[in-house]
Structures are given as structure tokens and as C-alpha cells.
């Protein structure tokens, strides 16, 4: 039986989810399944994005991701190749693909036996080549993964600042995290936050450093060990480049 997730959603987001925990946990243990459930809930969006792009239908994508996660959370074994286990992202994508192909087979055999007009079977094999101008489903998955990861990292940072009583500062400064873009006058924002311009610049710099730390923690949580961290960051950055 899987126990309930913690009721405070914010804290659930904040908890570092460890892929290692899942990997090390015994397959049938409640702790293992709980950890897996947390990870899946955290990275629901990329699965949804993948299925939407693959099925080319928003509703079908949503329904199928629902079914996928339901199966995962019921304790169904996720099938996945061993070499993908180092990264939860690869593992989850493999699992979704496997799930999808099983689903398609089921759909096919249903139609085959239904006594209706037979479809042109050879079409199931036509391998579509991706248009460089459109995202492939895999690329959509990775891109959404990167977005979700950033969202979670920003949220983690926000919670930290909230706990320190500096929530409003985070809100004011958030648009400036991308760089030194002149979003409004720095001096006026500084005085809004009751700081001198110098102090403000230092505070912003420190905040960026903390964000970097949050991102690294978030990504590590999906890796088996940290040797892949730099590479994973590069991959996610590339995924955002479309």
C-alpha cells in the first residue's frame, strides 16, 4: 500500500527527491514506491508534453499520461533499459515510450478483431522524419523537463527566501535573474527594497548564486550520481534552445 504524500504541497515540491533513493530501495518497498511517486509527480509535465506531441492531440495526451502515472503509482513495474537508469529523465522517457507502444498494440488488436473495415496496416510502419522546424516528441519532452526543472528550482529558492522573511525581495527581483537586462531602473528598485544600489547589486548576485545551487540540487535529485551533473545541465540547456 502506498502511503499518502505529505499534505503540504509546497513542501512536497521542496523536498529533494532522490533518484538514488528509488534505485536503492527494494522494488516492493513502500519507501521506494513513495520516492518514485514523488519523482513522477514532480516531472509530470514533460510526460504530458511528450504524449501531446506524439499523439498530436491535447486530450489524448492528457488521458494517456493519466493512465501512465496511474499505472506507475499502482506499483506497476516501470520497464526501462538498464543503461538509462543513471538518469531519471532518460528512464522516465523510456518508460513512457514503452507504455505508449503497449497501448498502441492494444488499440490495434482491438480494431483488428472488431469486424470492421480493416485499416491499411502498412501505415503503422511509416516512420516519420521530424521536421527541423517542429519539435519532435523527444525534444518536447526534454524541453519541458528543463522548464519544469527551472520552475522547481525557482520555487525552492522562493521558499527559502520566504522562510527568511525576504519573500517580497524575491518577487521584485525575479525578472532580473536572467541577466543584467535593464528591466526598470536599478536605483529605483534598490530604494524600493530599502537598499543602496551597491547593496542591491551584491544581493542580486548572491541570489543568482543560490539559484544556481538550487538548480544543481534539483538536477542531482534525478541522477544516480553527480558525475553526470555538468552533462545533464548542458543537455537541458540545449533542449531549451529548440
Amino acid at each position, binding site marked *: 500500500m*502506498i502511503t*499518502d*504524500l505529505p499534505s503540504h*504541497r509546497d513542501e512536497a515540491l521542496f523536498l529533494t527527491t532522490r533518484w538514488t533513493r528509488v534505485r536503492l530501495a527494494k522494488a516492493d518497498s513502500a519507501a521506494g514506491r513513495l520516492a518514485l*511517486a514523488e519523482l513522477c*509527480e514532480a516531472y*509530470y509535465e514533460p510526460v504530458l508534453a511528450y504524449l*501531446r506531441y506524439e499523439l498530436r492531440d*491535447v486530450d489524448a495526451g*492528457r488521458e494517456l499520461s*493519466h493512465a501512465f*502515472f*496511474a499505472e506507475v*503509482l*499502482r506499483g506497476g513495474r516501470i520497464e526501462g533499459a538498464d543503461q538509462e537508469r543513471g538518469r531519471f529523465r532518460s528512464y522516465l522517457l523510456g518508460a513512457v515510450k514503452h507504455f505508449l507502444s503497449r497501448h498502441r498494440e492494444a488499440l490495434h488488436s482491438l480494431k483488428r478483431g472488431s469486424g*470492421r*473495415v*480493416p*485499416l*491499411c496496416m*502498412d*501505415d503503422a*510502419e*511509416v*516512420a*516519420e*522524419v521530424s*521536421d527541423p*522546424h*517542429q*519539435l519532435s516528441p523527444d525534444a*518536447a519532452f526534454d*524541453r519541458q523537463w*528543463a*522548464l519544469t526543472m*527551472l*520552475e522547481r528550482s*525557482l*520555487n525552492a529558492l*522562493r521558499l527559502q527566501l520566504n522562510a527568511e522573511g525576504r519573500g517580497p525581495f524575491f518577487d521584485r527581483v*525575479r*525578472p532580473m*535573474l*536572467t*541577466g*543584467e*537586462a*535593464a528591466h*526598470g531602473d536599478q536605483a529605483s528598485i534598490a530604494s524600493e527594497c530599502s537598499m543602496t544600489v551597491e547593496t542591491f547589486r551584491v544581493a542580486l548576485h548572491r541570489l*543568482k*548564486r543560490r*539559484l*544556481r545551487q538550487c538548480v544543481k540540487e534539483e538536477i542531482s535529485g534525478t541522477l544516480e550520481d553527480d558525475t553526470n551533473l555538468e552533462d545533464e*545541465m*548542458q543537455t*537541458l*540547456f540545449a533542449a*531549451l*534552445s*529548440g
Partner: protein
Amino acid sequence: MRDSLLDSRASRSSSSLLEGLSAKALMAEIMEPTQADDSGLGAMPPLSPEELAPHFPQLEILECLGRGGMGVVYKARQKSLNRVVALKLLAPERAGDPQFAARFEKEAHALAALNHPHIVAVYDFGLAGGFYYLLMEFVDGMNLRQLLQSKRLTPREALRIVPPVCAALQSAHEHGIVHCDIKPENLLIAHDGSVKIADFGIAKMIGHATDRENVHEAGTPDYAAPEQTSGQADHRADIYSLGVVLYEMLTGERPTKTIEAPSKRVQVDIRIDEIVLRALEKQPELRFSTVADLRQSVESLIQPSAPPIPSAAYSKKKRIIVGVLTGCLVIAGMGYWTMGRSHPKRPRLPYEEVVDFDQGRINESFADNVLSGRSGYAISPLGLAGTSGLALAETLNSEGTLAYKRKSYDLARLASLEISCCFKRQAFAGATHSITLGLTENMAGHFSGVPGAAFLGLRLKVEGEVMRFQFICKEAQVGPPRSWLQPGEIHTEEDEWYGLRVVFNRVSPNIVRVTGELKAVDRHGREGDTVAYFLPRDFAEPIFPLREILENPETWVAIRAVGPGGVSRVDDFHIIARPLPSADPVALDQPR
């Protein structure tokens, strides 16, 4: 319990913390914290229609049409007026800048005031979801760049594009607006052949090198007048840009530093040289003083009072003349070959083959070559204009491929191969494709994925109640077919006749260029409106396994029609193979 968790996610309202931020820029910042400035922004990946939808509740976002230097363009439907529009999103880096906002508004007002039949209209503008956006007229057609990529314009055709552009520019200049970014990508050519200028004034909005921030170049520098870099440009900059475009249309290339006169590169009237070179003068004072002057000069050449003066240096260089472009039908009155019976006794071209269904029997060479498919074809008296056509058997299970072989469809020896037919629509009944035109290696393969002969073709794929163009090709024996699906849905109606035309061009040993068109056709086979285009697209090795089929001198032209794919009858199966030009390249260019 688990399920409720998943459901609650959907209803959880979340204002994203990424709102207003470029995710890529954020990630870049995280990875390289020592950068002090905005560098590395580059282009954002385009948002999907679903991601955009919440920011534009008044629109139904249909599809992404593409990305240009200024931003991304989407096709959308304006719900209140039920019309199709183009939504252009400008780069998000500007979103926080109040100076930009003021400039944007000013320019948008000026654009809206420009009301000209040859200028893409602006309906609305604003700021949503962190993007500045423009809501514009949707032009169903292609841009000049796409046209140039698919065919070589004759000098006449090139010149005919100029007057409407000049008329539009003149009107704009009189309103004090300079385009600043005239280039083939911004000249749109609609289905009916009319020309419209797009992206007016946007270049000015975005600004050029005068801005202190990093600006990614707004358009190709090749088209910009020399004085534009210093910010001193006036309306004469547009004249220069138009000159570059004209040069490129005539010669196929943009002018280099030392400009070579067009008549030295292609066979054109030398009076064109004067016009083009004057427009391309480095100093604005030496150019035409207004676009109206340029227009007048061009028009005098289109309607000559004296016969044209051929250029002295006629190049005898052999060039592949691309066959009739099906993507852009009529440019200012040039007639193109029309399908069907609109010309009752049109003399058949020596290289044209028509499959004769009208005798009430399939002709001999065809009879040898008919594949019966899964159930038979029958000649029926219910083709176009009451003549005989092929009816697919009345049961829903029918489909089949007809292969017609002629001596040589060796695409290495052809300029182009055009295949067309008409078909009548019936209800879709579960099949995933309806009609395919193309080439097969031998009779054993019928555009099918099962092990068999190599093929390539363009087909109409069926998805629910709509169709889509799809290019497919396969090598013999091995592997599944590869395909490319064009975005965009095609809507057709039951009991109506349509004409499908496909043109294959082998532009190089490894590359085949495909264009296609679906037109409505009346009961007599006369062409009506175009329903959809397959925009010119190149398919190349190694992704698409073309060689086998292209190198085979015995390829068969084939048509495959599927009853449950919505086809009840087929008629007017035409094949036109255009050989490479021999001595006289002009002969093939005549209007029919």
C-alpha cells in the same frame, strides 16, 4: 487516492515562476554566472499553440507558421469575427522596456493607418504573455523566397512583381513610413497571384545599431541600403532593397560588391540593367527619387512600345529549367497549363501522356500494367464530364494501385515529372490515406510499407475528417518507409471532385524537390480554387532513401487510391515528363 492527486494537479492554479522570463536566458545565466551582460540570448524556442492559448483568449491558435528574424508567426482564428489571422510575436527581450513600448505603439498606429491592397493589414497590437504581438491579415500563399527556391522566374514574371510593390511603397512613403526591410521573405504572394508587403515598419520598431542593447540583426544585411547602418536612411533605402530583390529575381543571386549587370548574367533586355543599376546606386541621390519613378520605368518595359533589345552577351550555358511551378499559379496574367477539359482539343505536348479512360476500356499498355490491388477496378461511365473514369469497386474494402510505365521516367534525364489526376470524394471509412501519386520501382510495390519495391510519392493522409499532405519514400526490401508530413489540415467535401497534382524535380543526384497542389475541380474537369499546396520542399539522402528509385531508368508512375480513404472515382490521370532543355532553353518557357 492516487488518482485524485493527479486530478488535483490539473485544477491547481499556478502562476508560473518562469512567467516573463526567457528560460533559455535563465539557464544560460545559471551555467555561466560570470557574464555581465545580456549575451547569449539568441532565439527562444517557439511556444506551442497550447502554451500561447491562455494569453490570447480572443484567438484560437491554429499552428506555428514559422520564425523570421523579428519573431514567430502563428496562424490563428479570431473568434469574434470568425476569420483567420496571422499572429506575430516579437522578441520577448523588449518586454520590460518602456521606451520600446512607446515606440511600438506609435509604429503600430502608423501601420494601422496604412490601408493599401498590397500591404498586409494590421488589425491589432499589444502586449500579452510577455510578448509584444501584432495581429495581422493572413495571406494564404507563399513568400517570394519560397517561390525563388522552387523555380526560376522569367524576366517578365520578375518585373511584374515590382509595380504592386512600388504602389504600396509609394503610399507608405507618402504617409511618412519607410519599410526598411524589403526582402523576398517580406513579399508575400497569395494564391491568386497578388503581391503583398509584410512586416512594414517592424524594422524601425526593433531598431538597429542605434540601440544600446544587443540587437540580433533584423533581417539580412544583404538587402539593406548602405546608409541604413548609420541610421540616416530615408525612403530611398526601400528603393535600394527593392533593387536587390529585383536583381536576385532576374539572376538568381544577390549582387556582389562589384555589381555585374543583369544582362551579362542572364538573357534579359538591356534596358533592365539601367533600372536595376540605378536602384542599386550606393548614394541615395543617384537612385530613383521616388518608388513611383521606379515603377514607371519598369512598367514601360512590361508594355513595350518597341520590341525588346536582346543582350549582346547571350549565355549558352546549359541550365536546368525547372518545370511548371504548381505552387504559384498566376503571376500577373501569365497563364499556366491547366488540367482537365478546359481546353477542348488542346494539342498534346510531345512529352505528355494521358491515360485514356474514355474509350470505355483501359488502353493496351495500361492494361498490361494494371495492378488489381485488393479488389478490382472497373471502368465506369462516371468520370468527369460524363466520360469514362475508373471507379473503385463499390465495397468499402477496395483499393488498388495503377502503374503506368513509359519509356523513360529517368529523373536524371528529366527536368521534371508532373503527375496529376482527378478524384471524387466519398466518406472516410477508417483508412489512413486516400490517394498517392508517385514513382515505384516495379509493379510489386504499391506505395506500401511491406517488403517490396522502392518508391517515392506524395499522398494525402487521412486524420479523422481532414487530410494532410505527406511525402513518403522507401528503399526496396529494407525498412519502413520514411515520410514527412506537412503541417496544416486540408478540408474536402464528399461528392466533390478534386484535382491532385504533384511535381518531382531532381535538382541534384541526391535531392528531389517536390511540390504539390490540391484543387477543386468542377464536373467538367475545369479547375477551380486551390484547396491546399504542398509547399516546395527538398528531400535528400541519406535521410530519405531516394537513390534507388531515382537512378532506375525504368521507374513506373503510379497512382494508388483507397476507397475507405475517401476516394470513389478517379479520372484524368496525366503524366507530363519534361526533358532537359536541348539547344533552346526559351522554348519550354512559353505560356500555354
